[in-house]
């Protein structure tokens, strides 16, 4: 292998690969060949079902009679006219962006802290990783128990530190605003470890020389943080945000288990409402329309973010 240590590899003139029929053709064939299994897998198991879901959304299928009768955009129109759908749409956006904003800030702080050497760091890392390791179906049930309408330990603790008076017992899952806060808390709780690890990886890959150079130039800690570290973190942070956003956007587990979309359907997100309408209530076509409603918007948004990530990557 090359040299060890922290030497920066100097990119000199790259020796040209051997030309001639052998190499070039191999690469041109090899590229798609190596890519093929992944693409095939995704195409068969996601692409085709997606096309089917698209067709469902313009049909009148139910779970009880999956016959595909074309009805045009009726399902989409019906969705737009539904108050619950509109609130689900807003909720999805709020939950995703608020929780992701919190996650990125908090995980950066956490990563900065975890980088330090301190006694018990191994144990701390283990404890921090627990939420990411817990199956969400079980972790969410745990939070449900913590927010329980009668036995909530969260309320008990808040009372114990006198943030709540002895007569107050907020219904975390029964009041729309608190329920939304609860859902955001659980999303943040769950995504924080992963984001922190990703950012930690980014932190550790910042070359020491650059930091030393900045320190020598007289930059204080805060200046180093904002002018050197955070910019250099941005490509990897962008990846973390991108993934976190998409993941939260399409997640129904937390909402479904914590509040079932309640109180009175006010905390549904698109994914959970799609499940409720499409599967539980049986209107498959309507559920498909709800789930796919934002696809064009998401597509555009994701393409944009990916272009940004690519630009940031090459810019560093």
């Amino acid at each position, binding site marked *: 292998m090359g040299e060890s240590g922290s030497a920066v590899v100097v990119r000199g003139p790259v020796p040209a690969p051997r030309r001639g029929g052998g190499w070039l053709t191999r690469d041109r064939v090899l590229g798609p060949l190596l890519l093929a299994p992944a693409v095939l897998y995704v195409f068969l198991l996601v692409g085709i079902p997606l096309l089917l879901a698209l067709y469902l959304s313009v049909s009148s299928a139910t779970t009880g*009679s999956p016959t595909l009768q074309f009805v045009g955009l009726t399902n989409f129109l019906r969705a737009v006219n539904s108050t619950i759908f509109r609130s689900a749409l807003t909720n999805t956006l709020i939950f995703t962006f608020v929780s992701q904003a919190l996650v990125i800030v908090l995980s950066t702080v956490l990563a900065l802290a975890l980088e330090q050497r301190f006694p018990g760091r191994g144990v701390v890392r283990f404890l921090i990783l627990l939420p990411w390791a817990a199956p969400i179906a079980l972790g969410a049930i745990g939070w449900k128990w913590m927010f329980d*309408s009668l036995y909530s330990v969260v309320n008990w603790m808040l009372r114990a530190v006198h943030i709540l008076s002895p007569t107050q017992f907020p219904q*975390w*899952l*029964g009041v729309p605003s608190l329920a939304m806060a609860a859902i955001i808390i659980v999303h943040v709780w769950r995504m924080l470890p992963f984001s922190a690890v990703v950012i930690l990886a980014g932190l550790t890959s910042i070359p020491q020389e650059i930091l030393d150079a900045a320190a020598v130039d007289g930059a204080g800690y805060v200046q180093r943080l904002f002018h050197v570290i955070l910019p250099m973190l941005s490509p990897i942070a962008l990846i973390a945000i991108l993934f976190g956003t998409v993941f939260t956007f399409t997640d129904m587990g937390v909402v479904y288990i914590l*509040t079932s979309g309640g*109180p009175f359907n006010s905390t549904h997100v698109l994914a959970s409402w799609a499940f409720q309408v499409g*599967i539980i209530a049986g209107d498959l076509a309507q559920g498909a329309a709800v789930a796919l409603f934002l696809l064009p918007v998401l597509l555009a948004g994701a393409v944009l973010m990916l272009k940004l990530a690519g630009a940031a990557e090459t810019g560093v």
Partner: protein
Amino acid sequence: MDERTREWVEVSDRRWRLVTRRQLLTAGAAGAAAASLLPYVNLRAWAQTRRLTILQWSHFIPAYDKWFDNEYTKQWGKQHDVEVVVDHITFAQIPARAAAEVAARSGHDLYQHISPPANFEPETEDLTDIAEPLIKKYGMIELSRRSCYNPKTKKFYGLSLSWTPDPAHYRKDAWDEVGYTPDSWDNILVAGRKLKKMGLPIGEGISNDIDSNMGMRDILWTFGSSEQNEAHEVVINNKNTVEAVKYVRALFKEAMDPEVLAWDASSNNRAMEGGKISWTLNAISIARSLERNNPSFSPKVQVWAPPRGPRRARLGSEHVMYVYTIWKFLPPERKRLAKQFLVDFANNWEKAFYASELYEFPSLIGTVPPEKVKQALLTDAAAHREGNPHKYAVLVDAPKWSTNVGHPGFANGAVSEVFDTFIIPQMFALAATDKMSPEDAVKWAESQIKPIFAKWRARGLL
């Protein structure tokens, strides 16, 4: 034995082979290796026996599952030379799994639903050929018939063998203190005000949950209104509904705690068992849990019928309506077997009645004659232990004061969809929390319900 002598060894049921010692040892090693992988390999394809697969919910009474899985189905299987496999699923996931089986065109032979599976009608086998003889023989209570029969298509899309009533549980000690019985909704409001001041509010959920769906419908019906009429037209927007909504708003503000908006199916259980509420509607799971977990507190909690309303005598929804369906797309041989199991189960259903500890009531009247039901209720061991032999007496008339979802009409896909999107509890909640006026809340509910009915009518199932 030495290397060469051969011995007879039984290799499977009633089949023998002559093997040498070496063969025996290698077979043993291979067998051990295979056995470790066994759980992950499907041997079904090599088996010769017939198979029947049943999907049931995880019963509230664990002993029932043990009885059904390990005793009844095993005995039936032995008698008919069939391997019976029973899988379990949590009740909330029943629709999801059913949808998957329909999409997959493959699934369990017998599928147990706990609410009328009207929306699956196009995919379920018509069970008229077994239902009608059974009904002729035993008679079927009306609310069960309306939960598995479609009068428009004249099809039994499923067969109900049992259901669970939804009586009220109340704190007799507290109610005696305020001097009322929970016999009418009016009483519940009047006494509820006093009880709330005593720290024991009424506990009727107004949330996205099955209990709330049932309880709110009880109020709707006894106030003289309903979602649909007998002709299955949407009739919810009328002054009786508005009156019911106003009543619930008053009940919520004056006699209940706001937490009822957050309740799931287990919340009222725990609230009553924890001594926090004075009245709720629920199947007897509360009483049974208390008898088991808190025998000193249990006598304070008594059972009563659902309340009377201003316009109609007491009416409670069924809490659970067990309906078995058979998928149409299964091979005919398996459908035949499934039907046979159902018929035999119906004829033996009395055993299930006792195994369920009185949680399940017979849909087919004759399977457990009313006198036997009455006797079981009045001689219940737990009730006697508490010195209250009449604890469950009110359930004797349960078929009289219970009805199906969709009252006064039949259960159908539209009603199920309204049920599964929690429109009724939401209507009440919107008004109770002053997010809408009662009139607007009712109008909103109508605007949500009407398109659903139109959809189902267009499918020809209504």
